[in-house]
């Protein structure tokens, strides 16, 4: 175990549980700061009660924002507009490359433009239910409320959302909803939303209110007098370790799906920023809640470096099926209707192909486990547009999904207009993340987490088109209020980079880099990452068991030990070295993967994306245990020893937990 950070300050007499069953006693360390009163009035009430920073004083505050995806770019732009002095960091060469750029399908908002019965309340309801009752109601309601402002803001920025012939905004429907509330820009919604936020941020760069630091990787949070006061970053071009001070730090650093090696995330997505913050005292919430997306292009060979998502919107018109008989190797066109099993339509007649992601993924795995999967590997199912093309014509389908079909054709060399696509589930999104209160503040005062990096709004399963919504809600409409409240309430002492805390953190960051290069072992970083991914996918993936998880904990620990003894990191630390960057990220994944398995092991129930095979209904649906597990599991770093678990019980005042039914 490589413990290079200082131990987080922790009161001695904490009584916390070490995993296992137990009742839902609130941890004294987790004050969610949720306002009282009816859920629909809480955000207004909170906004009114929050302290304000007077306009002339805002420029006296410096805010560090790590990450320039939807959450980071929207926060940086908005805070700078308000007058704060913002420093934005990204490891990319340009803020516009953040992983948010890859989101395809769309963004939800309770506009009810379709006049089909949508409302803030319904979006709130669908999200709490979709999250399988493991999200905080107050946060979700706020998300639904501000969703409408997001669309307005993006339209005003020039985001070219799809429109109807009358010139008004068009909507489509996504999994887990029976209304059309998803706004989209062809299959490039994330790109257009990110460019909107990026441009708003670049406008502030021009005005000097945002200082942009590209090709910088954050390696540590610096905590002074119990508060986050800066970060340590590595300049990826020169290798220099830099120290940056601030009055508050925002982590907008995205999700950790790449702990599985193969995922739909961009190659560089990683857990480093969140993990280093965790080691400085920020609790990590629900790390085992990961989302497996049902519609991805199946794996084709060992050299495979990532998986490609086919937007869920395809399920609006595509029908999912496999042959009825196991081992049926006929071409899809030779399999007549009566020999096909449209298993989602069969099992879930009310939602059909539009069931939520976790349900669709598990159903696909189940038919493949029965030997009815298609393709060479038997690890895929068909997504068939034959009917839709017949009904609507190829041109309509091309207009709706042209770029996705093009991408599929490119990767597989098959023509999806002629034969059905083949898809299989892949890791896609992480609902878990740094624990934050209603103000998006972590357990370290002054350290906030936004976007996919926090755990807050999606419970155990995220609905499609809700991540973009959350990232922008956090950045445009929540943090501007809650950060002001923090800065107006706290008395922050004057500090300089000469302080011990900065020097120690910088030294440790440097030593870790030196250590990685000095091991000179025989196994490459890539090999370690792939091996870790394999352990995680097999044991902490779509179906989890007690034995598998226990095995994963031991195997990850063993792999980590081997890594620090036997990794081979090429190149040097004084020039751009992507290989070294990867090594440092994999080292963190090797610690984090163990925590994920621990969390999955302790949660003896199935909910949302967390499916414990021991806990299922006779029909094979996830079986929650609300009596024992209706809480947020927040883990505290314990210097590599068994981490203490803290619980934030969840109260459902509005949406009463029931078994989710999409039948």
């Amino acid at each position, binding site marked *: 175990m490589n413990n290079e950070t200082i131990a987080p300050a922790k009161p001695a007499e904490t009584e916390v549980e070490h995993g296992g069953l137990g009742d839902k006693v609130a941890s004294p360390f987790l004050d969610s700061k949720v306002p009282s009163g009816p859920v629909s009035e809480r955000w207004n009430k909170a906004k009114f009660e929050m302290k304000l920073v007077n306009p002339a004083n805002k420029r006296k505050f410096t805010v560090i924002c790590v990450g320039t995806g939807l959450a980071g770019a*929207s926060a940086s732009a*908005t805070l700078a*507009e308000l007058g704060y002095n913002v420093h934005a960091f990204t490891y990319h*060469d*340009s*803020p*516009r490359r953040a992983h948010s*750029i*890859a989101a395809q399908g769309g963004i939800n908002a309770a506009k009810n*433009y379709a006049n089909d019965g949508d409302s803030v309340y319904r979006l709130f309801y669908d999200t709490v239910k979709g999250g399988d009752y493991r999200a905080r109601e107050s946060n979700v309601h706020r998300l639904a409320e501000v969703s409408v*402002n997001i*669309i*307005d*803001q*993006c*339209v*005003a*920025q*020039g985001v*070219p*959302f799809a*429109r*109807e*012939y*009358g*010139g*008004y*905004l068009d909507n489509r429907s996504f999994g887990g909803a029976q209304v059309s509330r998803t706004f989209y*820009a*062809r299959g*490039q919604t994330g790109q*257009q939303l990110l460019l909107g936020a*990026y*441009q*708003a941020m*670049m*406008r502030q760069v*021009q005005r000097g209110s945002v200082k942009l630091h*590209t090709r910088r990787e954050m390696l540590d949070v610096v905590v002074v007098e119990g508060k986050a006061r800066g970060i340590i970053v590595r300049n990826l071009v020169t290798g220099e370790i830099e120290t940056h001070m601030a009055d508050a730090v925002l982590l907008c650093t995205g999700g950790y799906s790449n702990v599985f090696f193969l995922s739909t995330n*961009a*190659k560089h997505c990683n857990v480093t920023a969140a993990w280093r913050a965790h080691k400085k005292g920020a609790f990590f919430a629900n790390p085992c809640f990961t989302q497996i997306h049902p519609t991805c292009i199946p794996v*084709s060979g060992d*050299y495979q*470096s990532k998986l*490609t*998502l086919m937007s869920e919107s395809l399920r609006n018109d595509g029908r999912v099926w496999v042959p009825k008989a196991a081992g049926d190797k006929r071409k899809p066109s030779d399999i007549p209707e009566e020999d096909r099993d449209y298993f989602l339509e069969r099992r879930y007649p009310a939602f059909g192909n539009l069931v939520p992601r976790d349900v669709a993924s598990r159903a696909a795995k189940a038919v493949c486990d029965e030997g009815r999967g298609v393709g060479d590997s038997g690890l895929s199912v068909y997504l068939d547009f034959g009917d839709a093309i017949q009904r609507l014509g190829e041109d309509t389908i091309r207009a709706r999904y042209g770029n996705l079909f093009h*991408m599929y054709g*490119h*990767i597989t*060399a098959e023509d999806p207009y002629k034969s059905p696509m083949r898809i299989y589930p892949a890791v896609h999104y992480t609902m878990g993340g740094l624990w934050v209160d209603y103000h998006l503040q972590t357990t370290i005062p002054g350290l906030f987490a936004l976007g996919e990096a926090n755990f807050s709004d999606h419970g155990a399963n995220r609905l499609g088109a809700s991540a973009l919504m959350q990232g922008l809600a956090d950045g445009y409409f929540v943090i*501007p209020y809650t950060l002001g409240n923090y800065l107006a309430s706290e008395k922050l002492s004057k500090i300089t980079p000469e302080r011990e805390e900065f020097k120690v953190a910088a030294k440790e960051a440097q030593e870790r880099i030196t250590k990685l290069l000095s091991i000179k072992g025989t196994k*490459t970083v*890539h090999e370690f990452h792939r091996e870790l991914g394999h352990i995680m996918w097999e044991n902490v993936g779509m179906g989890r068991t007690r034995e598998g998880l226990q095995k994963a904990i031991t195997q990850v620990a063993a792999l980590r030990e081997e890594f620090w003894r036997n990794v*081979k990191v*090429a*190149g040097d630390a004084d*020039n*751009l*070295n992507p*290989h070294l960057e990867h090594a440092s990220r994999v080292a963190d994944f090797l610690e984090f993967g163990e925590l994920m398995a621990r969390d999955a092991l302790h949660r003896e129930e199935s909910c949302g994306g967390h499916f414990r095979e021991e806990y299922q209904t006779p029909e094979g649906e996830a079986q929650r245990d609300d009596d024992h597990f209706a809480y947020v599991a927040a883990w505290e770093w314990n210097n590599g020893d068994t981490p203490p678990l803290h619980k934030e019980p969840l109260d459902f005042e509005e949406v009463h937990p029931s078994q989710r039914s999409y039948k």
Partner: protein
Amino acid sequence: MATQTNGSKKPMNLKLLVWRQKNGMSKGAMTTYEAKNVSPDMSFLEMLDVVNEDIIKSGGEPIAFEHDCREGICGSCGLMINGVAHGPDEGTTVCQLHMRSFKDGDTVVIEPWRARAFPVIKDLVVDRSAFDRIISAGGYISVNTGQAPDGNAIPIAKQSSEDAMDSAACIGCGACVAQCKNASAALFTSAKIAHLRLLPQGDPERAERALRMVAQMDEEGFGSCSNEGECEAVCPKEIGMVNISLMNREYERALISGKK
């Protein structure tokens, strides 16, 4: 551009000639590598991954290249492959290029983008921050968070929105500059000007935007456009030269209207 396609699944062996350069200060040179047992289903970058693993195992330093999404959308990747930005397939980034576009025994020359405004940082990685500065000069609509009216307040003709989207699809990869003999950034800059010009929201700042973005483009050291059309031919998002004509009109209109 003709695309040869290798229809078979047979593994191939290729010879790679790759530009290696330690950093911005040092001189670079072409180095030869063998890529063995390449599956036609691999992507070009996956082929480089495999070559890199071999290099590391034999004690060398892996070839640095930029990439991230590997889905053709982040704009990180970009290589000159046999003299063509992003390689032989049309409308494709190098991360989406598959080895089935090559054949056994081919020699493949791999170089970084070459342009004065894009200095090499290492091997195949260049500095494209000039593009960010062009955007920050005016590639936005000035609206603060919270100022926006209802999203449906202004109807926008479907066609205008579609046209704007065509221009907005630019991923900022820099292929247009790399392929142009003048190293002009006209396609990149004009795509943003056009995107915002084609929507009513962009109207109030249109003159100012055109003047400032064009000025920044010149200041960064990009060459001027002489209508070669190479940019359009290699653009992975198939952004057209019509954007450049629109930019020129916008620029002239702004000059005539006397706006600074």
